[in-house]
């Protein structure tokens, strides 16, 4: 089957559309979750949607996406409220509250899941697919609902962009401006829950939280403005969704969720390493270059100091002495400086090893640097 044929396949089209909707919604909302330090809230919420999913299944008796989505949204929101109750009114901290909400709600979900199975009214296969996600389970009739929810979500974010941005970076200031911060925070948490619900069918309850975190972390590497970050996060999310679900649809029944998550993780790794400015590789290279420059300047200054002490600009210095002064091998750095015309090898007592001395240019360069308080021109 060639690519064009594959892409015109009906199921594949559904999956692609679902993956794009998933990526765009969770990518956009993930930016807020990550910047507000709520990455793990997403984890708790996504696990906590399970009882709602099972209940939606139980009430309608079939895999009705509308009922399942509504149920998931309700139980996710209840879990968020439970976390809030614990953090505000008890001495439990955020982490214990999240862990408790996650595991208790998930336990309830497992109970309902087994209840659905033993009631035998419906095939459990449709329900199981919500644990790890299943691309093939997306139906054409699901798409209008998913698209509608995504549009709703994006409209909300666009409408309240300024407010959401403000409570993300400076909630105190937002409060002094008279913004209803608590309401906005609740709205944002609800929106995050909605983004989770949109992706459940593809990624599953266990892994959905990763789709909030990974695209946003990757996007942060590429942009220092929140607008740019949101757009690239949505793009990364959609890319991971499309690639992961295509592999799953083409492959031998591999779970879709893990494939999407691993694709998103790969995007994160590439972004962390190679993004311009914030890429770790560039930072390493910069640090290595600076280390090299610093070492050579110090070498030059050591030689300058010895030349001054011996009142001889061309004073010949044993290489072993320079090695001791630098605390490491100096041959490579000396060769570099020699190429720049700042030092030269000097024949002197060959039995004592190699000797080096400053050239005229090297002496002047080092003097300019030392007398300029370290502000002189750069050597080599």
């Amino acid at each position, binding site marked *: 089957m060639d690519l064009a044929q594959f892409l015109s396949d009906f199921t594949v089209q559904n999956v692609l559309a679902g993956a794009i909707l998933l990526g765009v919604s969770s990518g956009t909302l993930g930016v807020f979750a990550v910047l507000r*330090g709520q990455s793990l809230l997403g984890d708790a919420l996504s*696990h906590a949607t399970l009882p709602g999913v099972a209940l939606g299944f139980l009430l309608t008796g079939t895999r009705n996406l509308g009922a399942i989505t509504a149920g998931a949204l309700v139980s996710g929101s209840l879990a968020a409220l439970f976390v809030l109750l614990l953090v505000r009114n008890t001495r439990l901290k955020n982490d214990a509250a999240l862990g408790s909400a996650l595991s208790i709600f998930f336990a*309830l979900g497992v109970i309902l899941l087994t209840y659905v199975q033993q009631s035998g009214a419906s095939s459990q296969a449709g329900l199981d697919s919500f644990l*790890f996600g299943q691309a093939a389970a997306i139906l054409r009739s699901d798409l209008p609902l998913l698209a509608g929810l995504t549009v709703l979500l994006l409209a909300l974010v666009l409408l309240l962009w300024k407010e959401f941005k403000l409570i993300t970076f400076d909630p105190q200031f937002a409060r002094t401006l008279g913004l209803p911060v608590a309401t906005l925070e609740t709205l944002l948490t609800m929106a995050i829950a909605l983004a989770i619900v949109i992706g459940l069918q593809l990624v599953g309850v266990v*892994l959905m939280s*990763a789709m909030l975190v990974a695209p946003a972390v990757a996007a942060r590497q590429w942009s220092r403005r929140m607008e740019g970050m949101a757009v690239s996060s949505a793009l990364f999310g959609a890319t991971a969704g499309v690639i992961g679900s295509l592999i799953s649809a083409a492959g031998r029944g591999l779970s879709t969720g893990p494939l999407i998550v691993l694709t998103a993780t790969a995007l994160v790794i590439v972004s962390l390493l190679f993004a311009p400015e914030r890429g770790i590789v560039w930072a390493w290279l910069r640090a290595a270059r600076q280390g090299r420059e610093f070492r050579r300047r110090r070498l030059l200054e050591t030689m300058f100091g010895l030349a001054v002490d011996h009142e001889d600009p061309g004073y010949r210095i044993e290489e072993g002495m320079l090695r001791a002064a630098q605390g490491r091998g100096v041959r490579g750095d000396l060769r570099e400086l020699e190429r720049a015309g700042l030092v030269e090898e000097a024949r002197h007592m060959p039995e004592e090893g190699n000797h080096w001395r400053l050239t005229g240019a090297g002496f002047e360069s080092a003097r300019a640097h030392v007398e300029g308080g370290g502000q002189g021109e750069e050597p080599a």
Partner: protein
Amino acid sequence: MSLEALLNDIPISIMVTGALVAVAGSLLGTFLVLRRASMLSDAISHSIVFGIAVVYLIFHVVSGPVQIIGAALTGVLTVFLVQSLTSTGRVKSDAAIGLVFPALFSAGVLLLNIYARDVHVDAHTVLLGEIGFVWLDTVAAFGMQIPRSLLTMAVVTLVNLAFVLLFFKELKLMSFDSGLARALGFLPGVLFYALLSLTSVTAVAAFDAVGVILFVAFVIVPPAAAYLLTDRLPLVILYACLMGIAASILGYWQAVAWNVSIGGSMALVTGYFLLAAVLLSPRYGLVAAAVRRRQNRRRLGKRAIVVHLYSHEGLDDEEQESRPQVLQEHLRWSEAQAHRSLRMSLDDGLVSFDGQRLHLTDKGRELARDILEPWQRA
């Protein structure tokens, strides 16, 4: 009934296994909750799916010492990756946790998907556990047949118990003052890694019973509930273990009554305990807090009345200010509040009423003086 028969009795073997998971988990979970690192147990228990899959593919075992070592290494790997990501300064620690464990979990699930279908271990079991079937798989030990999971969990529980007893002082110091622990040379970092390694070992020993996600309920929820009940660390651990054991017993019978997942039911019962602690804890519960607030409000009401009367005593407006109607206006109280406070002041004999105006009794005057001029106290 002999011990062997007891341990092979189906309900008892299930409840004992559940209780052992809860005790082993709570022993470690207490310190995770105190260190505010609860979510690391969630991350670790997801990540060990990767360890379980890799060890299975290489050695074709799902339990035993190799699996345990693999789990410990996976746990350490998880924490190491999280800390490395955080130390790049480009990812916050919560986001780092949220990146690492889904990636390892995904890799594990895919490996199981590809290589281990329809064999001893599949993604579904790893996730949800099969505590209902622990009695099926028995091993010979101490001259009798014992369910394998039960035996493994018993060993792990003993190891955890030994760890906590042996390093109790160090763990306590690490939990409450990590800086001091480091200054005194107790290596809190190493101890923390040991704690997390044991958490992963416990998770891998427990996964075939309760699954990797419900495991979090056994580690975090009982200590969280116990932490609301007492301030003494040994009691936190004790209460957590007791609640865990009770959850296993009650959870089993609840599951039987509803005919649902036993592991899920046990985990849900830990949730009942947490909710009960949140509401009913004598010191930190919501009910106790509401009662305290109410008592304070009442005490304040009585004190406001005597101070009001005392400060106008002997002045020109005494007559005017001592009428009950004035209280509402001058103290800005609602009618009900004024009425209630007055009633209680009268009941306590702090003031008296002659049909016209209020008088301070000696007792009331004494209280007012005590409030206004505490330095005159004898």
